[in-house]
């Protein structure tokens, strides 16, 4: 008898425990979601959903989230941030936002085809959509009222041109995420800017130590490589270490910033970073959605609003250093 009761208690305790530790939180959250639909828009109590393809724990998307939440606080609107790297899951999250009848949806479109249905469903439900980061070409076609991002090919070209100026000819482009088309576009853009084909190297963002070894081997096996372009700030740091391991003089350049990259630019081991200022990709869409909700304004006139590329190098790195450590650059 006692054992039976204990077993039942255990089986029942599981979800109850989960609910117990979160009820206080959910009370306010439910209110935010439930009250905000439709009529609430008039008196300024707006609620927006941000759904990105960033994986949990990715520092880049953390900055986007910070931007969106800061905009929500500054403008007095509620912002709910969700993300999932799997395109099907991401489209289900967009669908969930539609179901909640939010006043606006911000969605990153790394894989536009996969998101077409859910974005169009949001538009059909009368919810204004802003696309961010990638997917500029499809944004208007799917019915979004604007796009905020960095054109990956243009940013890649910028990096390629800068490397060419610095005298690089044999460039290694390090791809850290299999399946992310935006990264391939950056490398293609870099080829165009450089004027010659860059060489691609595949590493895994989840295992930076192995990435470092891979880059070291590549630099050892081909000493004519005179520049390494990484597409993620974490990979940039290990690329700099790999170059010194391999005794290579290759110039290191990267996309995106973090604290380590900034100090590496300060001490010269990384020459420059292409900053897409993703904080704006979180902040601006919230502003745009609020303007649209209150004044039917759109921004960009059908063209994407570009947040980059901004080049961070030894000339401006010191000013940015503090902002990056606060997590907004």
């Amino acid at each position: 008898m006692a054992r039976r009761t204990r077993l039942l208690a255990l089986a029942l305790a599981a979800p109850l425990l989960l609910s117990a530790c979160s009820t206080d939180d959910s009370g306010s959250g439910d209110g935010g979601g439930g009250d905000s639909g439709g009529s609430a828009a008039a008196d300024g109590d707006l609620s927006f959903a941000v759904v990105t393809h960033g994986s949990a724990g990715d520092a880049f998307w953390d900055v986007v989230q910070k931007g969106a939440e800061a905009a929500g606080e500054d403008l007095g609107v509620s912002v709910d941030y969700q993300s999932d790297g799997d395109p099907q899951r991401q489209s289900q999250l967009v669908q969930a936002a539609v179901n909640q009848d939010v006043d606006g949806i911000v969605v990153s479109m790394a894989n536009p085809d996969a998101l077409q249905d859910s974005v169009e469903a949001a538009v059909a439900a009368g919810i204004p959509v802003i696309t961010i980061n990638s997917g500029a070409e499809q944004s208007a076609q799917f019915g979004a009222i604007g796009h905020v991002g960095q054109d990956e090919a243009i940013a890649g070209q910028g990096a390629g041109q800068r490397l060419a100026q610095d005298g690089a000819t044999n460039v290694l482009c390090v791809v850290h995420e299999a399946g992310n088309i935006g990264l391939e576009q950056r490398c293609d853009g870099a080829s165009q800017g450089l004027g010659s084909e860059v060489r691609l190297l595949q590493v895994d963002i989840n295992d930076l130590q192995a990435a470092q070894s891979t880059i070291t081997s590549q630099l050892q096996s081909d000493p004519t490589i005179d520049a390494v372009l990484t597409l993620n700030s974490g990979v940039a740091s290990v690329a700099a270490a790999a170059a010194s391991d391999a005794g290579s003089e290759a110039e290191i350049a990267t996309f995106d910033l973090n604290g380590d990259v900034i100090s590496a630019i300060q001490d010269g081991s990384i020459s420059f970073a292409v900053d897409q200022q993703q904080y704006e990709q979180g902040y601006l869409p919230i502003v745009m959605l609020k303007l649209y909700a209150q004044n039917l304004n759109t921004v960009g006139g059908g063209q994407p609003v570009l947040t980059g590329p901004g080049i961070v190098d030894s000339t401006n790195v010191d000013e940015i250093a503090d902002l990056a450590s606060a997590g907004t650059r």
Partner: protein
Amino acid sequence: MSATREAPVERPVRADERLAAVGIWRRLLVKPELGSLIGAVVILAFFSAQSDVFRGLSGIANWLDVASTLGIMAVAVALLMIGGHFDLSAGVLTGTTALTVGIVATELDQNIWVAIGAALVLALAIGFANGWLVTRTGLPSFIITLGTFLMLQGLNLGLTKLFTGTVVVRGIAEAPGYHSAELLLASTINVFGQPFRVAIVWWLLATAVASWVLLRTRFGNWVFATGGDEVASRNVGVPARRTTITLFMTTAAAAWLVGSITAVRLTSVQANTGTGQELIYIVAAVIGGCLLTGGFGSAIGAALGALVFGMTQQGIVYLDWDADWFYFFLGAMLLLAVLTNRLVRRYAEAARR
């Protein structure tokens, strides 16, 4: 079978003292799916009470959609686990089949049904290879399928780039025959005016078929026997090898179904599709009452495990909770499920004595 045994039931007055009386509670508790059923009901009640969107038709369609493709895999993985094995390549295989559908349809310019057929042949071959290697070498399926998993992951990326020059296969919607495939695999069905994804029907169908096979067919008995004790089962004439290979091929076929649904629905497939999902399938099967040691579990339980997963994942969104904590909740549920299962197994063994 039941007809021949009706006679003893007619005289229940004198109970046989050699048979222990098994109370209704104990009989319920030895059902593998009980834990996940209680979990599902409690989670449903909890989220429904907190969010009117969650309990609304559009919300239900949304979390059933999440549960459906996961559920198809969880049911097949549950059969394999009852048979005493794991398949770590199951997640990445959904990507392999989806990419095959995409590449054959767009790069080789074939009808989409030809592409789907080719993906099925490939999936069954991979499933057979997994099963054959496991039965021939006697190595743990964990190791064999880990090898397959890594090889497929590399092939997915390498071949996709070789064929398309990039990491995404696109344009599946333009393939001939797409509309019939879409109707069958990626359409929606209106219920009370709310569109539900057709994948949900496939999920229910997979659960029903798997339950029937497991509980009503000779093959189902073989699965339990092989998973319970392979040597003993072989001694009494169970074709354990054939059973194991069939189970691996079943998992592969499920991966093919999910991969095809993904490819047709998204019309573009990323080279990293499905990677990491294999553990989620196992989690759903374990929440559903499958024992890691084999020989015990149920298909309905695994389907309920997938339902728990889908409801939790979307419920957190509907309550505007921080989704960063989702995996913590999932892990806690897994631990509780395993602990519950352990107690249930003790009961099951006690009831048998």
